[in-house]
């Protein structure tokens, strides 16, 4: 790992899909570096390639061309199972629809990544409880998702994303299913986590959400068209004493 190594470094990243006889170029030659501890918003209209980009960053997909180094490790040619292990250790996902498993307690949902990391049961409990505590939900540990509000569910999902100490937190429209106030709380939580040193990348189409970030990447037609600093970054009001695990 190089000294000033960026956590994400992509070179000419491309992704093609073959749909029938046609080849669709979802992403064409994107090159970018994201520094450790950065907070990046990814924006663009639908079909711009931002989702494809996020899927590649999250190791859910492999590029058709170019190279992607995550934390100094080339992941662009990894096998399915290697990618799964990488996701498990290095990436935390937060989705628009939370994607919690129903009829499992919040604690059990948070423990899930640790189960795939083969962490012993006792330690799983301990770490999951700590992650829930970090998102301010220790008192809801034994509630099922259906008994929680949208904001609480998203917090559980964030705790699940954090529980295995990832270096990269990927959030795909994390506030899309929440009201404005709750959305702000969630974004404030991201800011707090970012301050603890975790790199956060948020996909959004709302500028207000993007303004919590330090940097905005804009996509259009599969290309990165803008990479700008956020001026007048939104301040965190309401002291949310979130504490990232570890």
């Amino acid at each position, binding site marked *: 790992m190089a000294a000033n190594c960026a956590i994400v470094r992509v070179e000419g990243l491309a992704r093609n899909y073959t749909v029938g006889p046609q080849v669709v170029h979802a992403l064409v030659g994107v090159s970018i570096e994201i520094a450790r501890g950065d907070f990046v918003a990814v924006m663009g209209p639908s079909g711009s390639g931002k989702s494809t980009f996020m*899927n590649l960053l*999250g190791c*859910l*997909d492999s590029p058709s061309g170019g190279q992607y180094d995550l934390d100094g490790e080339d992941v662009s040619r990894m096998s*399915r*199972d290697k990618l*799964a*292990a990488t*996701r*498990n*250790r290095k990436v935390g*996902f937060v*989705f628009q629809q939370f*994607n919690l*498993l129903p*009829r*499992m307690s919040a604690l059990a949902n948070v423990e*899930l*990544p640790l*189960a*795939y*990391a*083969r962490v012993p*049961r006792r330690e799983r409990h301990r770490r999951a409880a700590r992650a829930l505590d970090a998102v301010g939900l220790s008192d809801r540990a034994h509630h099922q998702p259906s008994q929680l509000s949208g904001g609480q569910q998203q917090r559980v999902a964030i705790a*699940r994303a954090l529980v*295995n100490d990832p270096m990269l937190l990927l959030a795909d429209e994390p506030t899309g299913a929440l009201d404005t106030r709750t959305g702000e709380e969630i974004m404030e939580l991201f800011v707090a986590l970012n301050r603890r040193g975790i790199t956060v990348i948020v996909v959004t189409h709302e500028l207000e959400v993007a303004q919590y970030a330090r940097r905005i990447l804009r996509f259009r037609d599969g290309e990165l068209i803008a990479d700008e600093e956020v001026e007048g970054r939104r301040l965190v009001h309401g002291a949310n004493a979130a504490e990232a695990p570890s």
Partner: protein
Amino acid sequence: MTPLDAIMAALKALRLNMLRSILTALGIIIGVAAVIIMVAIGAGAEARVEMIIRSMGANLMIILPGSSNTAGVRQGRGSRPTISEDDAAAIRSEIPSVHSAAPSIRGQAQFIYGNLNWQTQIFGATRDYLDAREWPVARGRAFTDDEIRTGAKVVLLGKSVVDSLFGEIEPIGQTIRLDRVPFEVTGILQQKGQSPFGFDQDDTAIVPLVTARQRLLGGRWLSGRTVGSIHVKFRNPESMEAGERQLRELMRQRNRLRPNQEDNFQIRNLSQIVESRAETTRVMTILLASVASVSLLVGGIGIMNIMLVSVTERTREIGLRMAIGAESGDIRRQFLIEAVTLSLIGGLIGIGLGIGGSHLVADLAEWPVLIEIDSVLVAFGFAAVVGVFFGFYPAHKASRLDPIEALRYE
């Protein structure tokens, strides 16, 4: 995920769809229960056949006199006295695989005790007879050597005779009259039940051979040493086939028959008759067992069907599990364990039903049933194999899903 995690997750998933799980497992339940009941009935029938063979005496052949043939007029069986006590002695000493050879004569007598009387058959026999027929004395004692040699007036009674004459009274030591001769009851024979041909084998009495000749049956038995039958018991079932040949040869030799002459005696191998009946039961069992396996097969297809449905329903869950780090193997294992758990639970319920059903058959149809632990284990193992076999394809399909597509699935 440890296997324990996977099993717990499987149980949870199955519990969420309790009714569906049970309906799915029904094929396995019925299949396993059917296997157990069928095998129980088959084994019960076989055990009964074995018991019947044992009641006649195992490894047993009976030599009977032939019919007389005077100028073409053939009399009935036993009409010619061609077998004797000496034949029995020769058989015992000359055929090594013979365990014992017991000569006996048979006749009727009127039994009188107090104001009750009862006519039944009596056998004049030696102690070898009890041995050959595996017929122990239940209470009291068998004859002594002295009593046999001297022709003492002692009698062993069958259970049915005791019931007819004594009721509540203790018969041992009592004196009863057979025809007009007083006999002392020395023992009671163990109950044998019906013969394979439906006769009550307990409606009988045994007296020493000499006593029967001199005091009771007289007549044609009085002269010489001829007997009505010889029970030949072999040491083991394997020696019976060769033994029968040796027996025939020896008897022909002793009767001085020329090669072109017919046998003037008969050899009956009773176990053969009964065994052919056991064979029928066995064929029946195989037939029913195959019906049961078809049911297991159908049950397996049901499991595959429902697992495919389950994989589709839980596509998003699979996508999520993959996103947070589940490898293909983790997903495959999860669904495979779910399928096997389903079939094993079906198997367990099937075992319960099978054992209960066997008892029900035993009670209602009064068939003898015998639950064999082997059949339970085989049925259970078969259920597991069905689960693995039919669960593999859906599990494999789940493990090959694309995480992005799966997460997007509505």
